[in-house]
C-alpha cells in the first residue's frame, strides 16, 4: 500500500490508482478536490444534506463531504468525471450525460456533479424506473435552479436508450 513517498496511500479513483497524502480521517471530498484536482464532487453543505459532493464507492452513492478517506481505501471511487467509463470502458459520455445535454438540462450546473452520479447509480440498478422511483431515488439531491423537470426527462430517456428502445 505505502510506497516511496512517506505516508502516501493509494486510492482507486475513476479506474486509476492515485497516490494521496491526506490523513485517513480527512473527508474524501477534500482529497478528491484538493489533492487530485477533481471538479465533479463539489462542496455544497459539508453535512450530507444536498448531494453536490456525491461519488460512488463500489457502485453505491455516498456523500464525500462526510465520508472519511479511510472508508474509501481499497475500494473503487467514481466521480462525475469517471461515470462514462464506469458505465462502459470505451464511452466518453454516459447515456444520461448525452440526454442531459440533449435536454439542455443544467442552468448553473453546480449540483450536476452529484446528480449525474446519483442518477447513474439508479440506472445501473433499475433499467426501467418509474417516475415515482426516480423521484424517490433522487430526492436527497437539491437543484436550486429548479431544473428538476428536464432532469427527470433526461433520466427517463437515458433509461429508455439503455434498454435499446431509442437510438
Amino acid at each position: 500500500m505505502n510506497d516511496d513517498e512517506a505516508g502516501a496511500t493509494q486510492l482507486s479513483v475513476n479506474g486509476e490508482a492515485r497516490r494521496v497524502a491526506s490523513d485517513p480521517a480527512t473527508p474524501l471530498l477534500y482529497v478528491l478536490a484538493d489533492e487530485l484536482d477533481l471538479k465533479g464532487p463539489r462542496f455544497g453543505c459539508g453535512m450530507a444534506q444536498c448531494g453536490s459532493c456525491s461519488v460512488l464507492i463500489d457502485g453505491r452513492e455516498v456523500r464525500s463531504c462526510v465520508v472519511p478517506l479511510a472508508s474509501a481505501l481499497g475500494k473503487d471511487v467514481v466521480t462525475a468525471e469517471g461515470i462514462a467509463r464506469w458505465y462502459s470502458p470505451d464511452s466518453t459520455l454516459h447515456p444520461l450525460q448525452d440526454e442531459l445535454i440533449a435536454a439542455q438540462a443544467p442552468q448553473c450546473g453546480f449540483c450536476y456533479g452529484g446528480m449525474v452520479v446519483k442518477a447513474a447509480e439508479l440506472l445501473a440498478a433499475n433499467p426501467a424506473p418509474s417516475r415515482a422511483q426516480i423521484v424517490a431515488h433522487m430526492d436527497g439531491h437539491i437543484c436550486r435552479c429548479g431544473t428538476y423537470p428536464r432532469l427527470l426527462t433526461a433520466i427517463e430517456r437515458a433509461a429508455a436508450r439503455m434498454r435499446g428502445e431509442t437510438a
Partner: protein
Amino acid sequence: MSGARLSSPAELTRRGLLKAGGALLVGFALIDPLARPARAQFGPPPGPDREKIDSWIIIHADSTATVLIGFVELGQGATTALPQVAAEELDLDMDQVRVVAHETEVTPFQGGTYSSSAIANGRPQVQRAAAEARAELLRRASQHLGAPLADLATARGVVSVRGDGGRQVTYGQLLGDRPFEISMTGEAPLKNPSAYRIVGQRAARPDLAEKVMGHRTYVQHLRLPQMLHARIVRPRGQGAFGAPPRLLALDEASIAGMGDARVVRENDFLAIVASREWDAVRAARALRAEWDIPASLPDSADLYNAMRRGVAAVQVVLEEGTPGEGSVHSVRFAAETPYQAHATMAPNCALADVKADGARVWASSQDIYALRGSLARLLGLDPLAVTVQFAEGSGTYGHSLYDDVALGAALLSQKMGVPVRLQYERADEHGWDTFGPAHIGEVAIACDAAGKLTSYSYDGWQHSWAFVETTEQMARGTPARGWPMGPSRSVNPAVCGGMYALPYRKLTDHVLATEEWPRGAWLRSPLDLSFTFASEQAVDVLAAQAGLDPVAFRRLNIADARWLGVLDAAAEASGWTGPELPPSGSLLRGRGVGLGTHLKGWGAAVADVEVDPESGRVRILHIWGALDAGCTVNPDIVDAQITGQLVQTVSRMLLEEVHFTPQGVTTLDWNSYKVARFSDCPEITPVIVQHLDQPSSGAGEEVMAAASAAIANAFHAATGKRMATFPFTPERVRAVLAG
C-alpha cells in the same frame, strides 16, 4: 500545485486577445469611482470605451469573432444568447462566435447582471456594436472588391458580389486580428427582424457539456501557487444589520495541532488560514471565540407586529388619477410574508492575490465594477490597480455573499502576503445572507356594478437593502448604511395594479430602518411575490363579489394587449374553464390564476393545487407560466428560465422562511431552511409569447409574481379559505382551515 490553471494577468489583457503585434485597444475614460456618492449612481466606470467597436467585437483571421460581453454567466444563459445577437447582426453562424471571460478593463461595462437586464439592456448594445462592425466590414469589402455596397451579400463571414459569386473576400482577409480603430457611427442599419436566422431560435449552450461531464471550472476550483485556504469565523447567524457582533476573546490554543492552521484577525473580522483546506475547516469549527452578541432583532414569531411598530417614514411612491364613479364592491386584504434566502447551492467562494501595488481577484459577483470599487476602498488601493475577473459560481438569484466573500479573500491575502482562497461554509451562507426582506402588504380596491375597477391602493411595509458588506463592517467598523428606497425595494408600480386600467391608484411605502433588521438585498423578483400575493388575491375576492370568473374579471380590467396576450396564453394552455376542480378522494383541489412581472415584461400563471385538509399538506400539481419578454432571443433558454422561476416560486410559497431569535438567524442549513426537491416539483408548462419585432425585456424573474398569486388563488379555490401569509406550512394550513 493543484487546481485549474489560471492565465497570468498579461495573458488576459485585451491586447492578448489579438495576436502579437496588434495595436493597443484600450482607451480608458478616467472616472474616479470613489468620487461618486453611491454605487447605485455610478455611471460607466473606467474600462473599455463603449463607443469604440473594438471594445465589443474582435474579428479574427479565420473570419470568426470574439464578442466582449459585460454580463456574467449565472447559469441563465446570457453568454449564449448575447453571442446569438452578435452572430445575427454580423451574418456569422453560432460556431463562429465566442466570448471571453468577463473582467474589468477587458470587457465593456454594461451594468450589473441583475434585474434580468442581460438581454433587455445587453441586446441593443451588442446588436448596435455588431451592426457597426458589419457595416465597416462591408465598407472595406466594397473598396476591396470594387463593387457598390448595394451589390454585396454576407454569409458565414464571407462577403460576395451578388450575381458574381467568384468575387468575394472574407472578414478575416479584411481585418483579421487587427482593430477596427473607429468609433460607432450611429448610422449602421440593424437587420430587419423578419430576416432573423439565429435570434428567436434555439441554440445549444456551450457550457453544458462540461457541466454534465463534471469538469466545469467554477470559482471554487481556482487555485494559485502558495495559496492558503481560508474560512471565516462568525457567530452562527446574523443579528440586526446595525448591530454586528463584537469579538471579546479568542483562544488560539483551541486549534493547536491542526496542521499549520492559524488565526487571522482584523478587528472583529476573524478567519482561519491553512495550507490544507480540511485543516482550515476543522480549525474554524474548533476555534473558541467569545462574542458580544446583542439582542438586536425581534423574535421571528413576532415579526409582523414588530414591523408595524417600527415604521421610520411613510412615503407615497405614486398617486395618480381620481377614483371612478359608482363603486359598489370593495375589498381590503392584508398579507404578511417572511424573509427568504438566496440559499445558493454553493456557499460563496473567492480567490484573491493582493500585492503592495495591486490586486487581482476572482469572484462570482453580479457587478465586478462595483466590487472593484469596494475592494479598492477596503485595501487602500487605487481602483485601477485592482482587477476583478468574473469566475462562475453556482446560481445566485440575486445578491448573495459573492461580494462579501471576495472582500474577505482580498483582506486575508493582503494580510498574509500570499494568494488566499476563501470558501464559506453552509452556515455562513445561510446565516449571513443578505435576505429578500420581509413584507406586509395592505390592499384596498373597489369596482363598479359591472366589475370595472374604480380605485386601487397598496400600502407596503418593508426595509431597504444593506449597502455595506459584513466583512467591511467587522474588519473596518464601517457603519451600517442602507440603499435609499427605489425600484425593487419600494412598492412596485408594475405589479401593484400596473396590469390593470385604473382610474385611481395610490402606492405607499411604510419604510423600516434598514439597520434594525436582518441584512436585505435583491432576491429574484424582489418583493414581487409578496406584492401579488396580496394584490392578486384581493382582485380575486373582488371578482367573486362582482360575480365574475377570475379570468373574465381580469380581461375586463386589463391594461393593454400585452397583458391580455399572456393572460389568454396561460388560460388557453391550462384549458381554463373556472377555478373549480373535482376533489381527489379526501384531497381538495382548486385552480387559480395570477398576473405579474418584475420591472418590465408581462407574466401570467395558472396553478392547480391540492390540499390535504387532515394533514394540512399542500401540493402544487401543475403550473402554466406564460411570459411575453418581447423578442425572445433563445426560446429554449427562456423555457428553462420560466421553469426555474416556477419551481422556485413553489419552493418559496410552500417551504422557505428565515427564522430568528433576538440574538440571530437560526435557519442555518437545508433542514431548517427547506427548499423544493424533486418530490415538491409540479408538472410545469412554460409558454412563451414571442414578439420578434419588439425590444427584449427580461426573462429571468418575470413569471414568479404571477405564479405566487396563482398558487394563493388556487388554494382558495380548493378550500374556500384565504392564506394571508406564506410559506403554506401544514401547521399554518391546518390553522386556517380550522378558523
